[in-house]
């Protein structure tokens, strides 16, 4: 950890001694919606930001903004410092071996597309396979479908069971000699299922299959250690982990990133440009063409520092207790059907209430100040599997508490009354 990072951590730690107090760090949560205190249960779609993130971004915009890696003037130096310090914070946050392995992208989607196009496309031949699971978010399906169309490779999908779990043996059974890539979620956004990554990655590596992990739903909820996981690529988004939108990260094993051609060309990713040939910049800049989202990265760095100071083990413990409480409360409601009942889950619960359409449920809950997500959650194959068009989904984050869940349960009872 750099001194800059550890210095900031102790600053943040003072204000976040206890996780129960963390809610007060998020200004958006202390407002009323439709005459009721807001209960925000849609963090899996996008999380709220703590004041430390909002302030850091504002401070950067007010005092330090210029373009990065360019000017010799003071502001350009400050902007570069802020941007690169954020990279250090992310390196610490996911325990990457080197800061060269942290590529800033527009988000998880951008990161996965980068790997599909730069890593996979040149390697894939007709008859090769890419292995995913039935649980994936559209952003971990469509980039692979595109590269399959471009190369003649085939997309192979590992099935799930009625609880919404991926059976590790089924996954292993699909890892034949033709599989050239496995792309798998860490946590299902629609159902909350935590996938058996360690076994899956170990088995894939035994067969020389590189592994990309879609970590968008893991980063805000649990300790992520990419070296311990052993994955080759790990993609995640800022706005799901208490940072602004439009910024995300691709972690890639240095040896792999090194061997990959650039994906997009432009400024910042070059050392020297001549009309008879261009020399590319070193890692990670080779993959950061154009002026990056500097303020977004600054915000993401601040969010990582916030989480490090809070302690991801404490976050995970808090959410595990809350999930248990939420599952219990929801199960007490007549005619509720829980969708996604995996043994190992992050703090997400999809459900249906009687015959009430999820969209109607969303409106009725919003009227009572309770924000949930309704619809297919960008995981239409998961909805097809359960034979439904969508679900209502309550997703928790570190700032939620039992009172939020009580309010959810009360609001659901009111919904039943409206539709009685």
């Amino acid at each position, binding site marked *: 950890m750099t001194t800059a990072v550890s210095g900031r951590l102790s600053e943040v730690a003072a204000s976040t001694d206890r996780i129960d107090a963390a809610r007060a760090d998020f200004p958006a949560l202390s407002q009323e919606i439709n005459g009721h205190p807001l209960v925000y249960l849609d963090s899996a779609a996008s999380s709220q930001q703590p004041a430390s993130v909002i302030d850091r971004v504002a401070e950067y915009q007010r005092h330090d903004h210029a373009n990065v890696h360019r000017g010799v003037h003071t502001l350009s130096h400050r902007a570069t410092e802020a941007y690169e310090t954020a990279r250090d914070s992310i390196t610490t946050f996911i325990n990457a071996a080197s800061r060269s392995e942290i590529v800033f992208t527009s988000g998880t989607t951008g990161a996965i597309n980068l790997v599909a196009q730069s890593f996979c496309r040149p390697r894939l031949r007709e008859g090769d396979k890419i292995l995913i699971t039935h649980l994936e978010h559209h952003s971990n399906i469509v980039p692979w479908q595109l590269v399959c169309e471009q190369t003649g490779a085939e997309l192979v999908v590992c099935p799930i069971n009625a609880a919404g779990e991926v059976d590790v043996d089924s996954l292993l059974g699909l890892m034949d000699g033709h599989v050239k890539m496995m792309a798998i979620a860490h946590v299902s956004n629609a159902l909350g299922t935590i996938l058996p990554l360690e076994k899956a990655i170990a088995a894939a590596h035994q067969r020389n299959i590189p592994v990309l992990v879609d970590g968008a739903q893991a980063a805000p909820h649990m300790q992520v250690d990419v070296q311990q996981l052993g994955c080759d690529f790990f993609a995640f988004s800022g706005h799901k982990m208490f940072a602004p939108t439009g910024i995300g990260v691709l972690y890639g094993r240095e040896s792999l990133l090194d061997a990959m051609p650039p994906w997009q060309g432009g400024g910042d990713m070059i050392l020297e440009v001549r009309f008879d040939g261009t020399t590319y910049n070193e890692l990670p800049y080779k993959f950061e063409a154009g002026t990056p989202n500097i303020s977004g990265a600054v915000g993401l760095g601040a969010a990582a520092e916030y989480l490090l100071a809070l302690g991801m083990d404490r976050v995970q413990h808090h959410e595990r207790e809350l999930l248990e409480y939420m599952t219990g409360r929801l199960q007490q409601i007549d005619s509720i059907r829980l969708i996604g009942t995996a043994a190992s889950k992050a703090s997400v619960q999809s459900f249906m209430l009687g015959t009430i359409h999820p*969209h109607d449920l969303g409106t009725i809950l919003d009227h009572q100040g309770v924000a949930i997500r309704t619809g297919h959650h960008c995981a239409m194959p998961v909805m097809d599997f359960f034979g439904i*068009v969508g679900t209502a989904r309550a997703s928790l984050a570190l700032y939620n508490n039992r009172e939020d869940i009580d309010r959810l349960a009360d609001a659901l009872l*009111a919904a039943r009354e409206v539709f009685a």
Partner: protein
Amino acid sequence: MSVAANNDIDELRDLYRELILDHAKAPRHFGRLDDATHTAEGINPLCGDKLRMYFTIDENSRISDARFEGSGCAISVASASLLTETVIGLDTDRALQFFAAMVDRLSGRPETKRGIEPAVGDDDLGKLLALEGVKEYPSRVKCATLAWHALNSALRQSQQPVSTE
């Protein structure tokens, strides 16, 4: 249940009125119309509403039958159901005036821009006014107007599915 919750329920019943819930639970003219002369699909990708509207139009440009199938939220299904009850027996020009009036009424965007003069008053709209509660819920206006856009599309014989996104 607390007083606040009771107030909420009263307010919500302005959106989910008895008539709406009745049509949502037991939609009229639900199902396929095999001898339809005009048909169109309405899709609301936000929530997955997907309705196909069928119309039979006779030689006098009169809608002699209307049906719909598909799935959607209470508002979109009730709106489609009420639509079928309304347009059977109307000639197509009059049905398009109802389309214009409903979109106008529910979204607050005058249809006159589309070259259609509403010319449909409250008396004509009658029970369709039960859908007016959506005005307070901007994200639900699309649900209420979905079937009407499909009607417009079908009568104008556009083959593209209409989307309210």
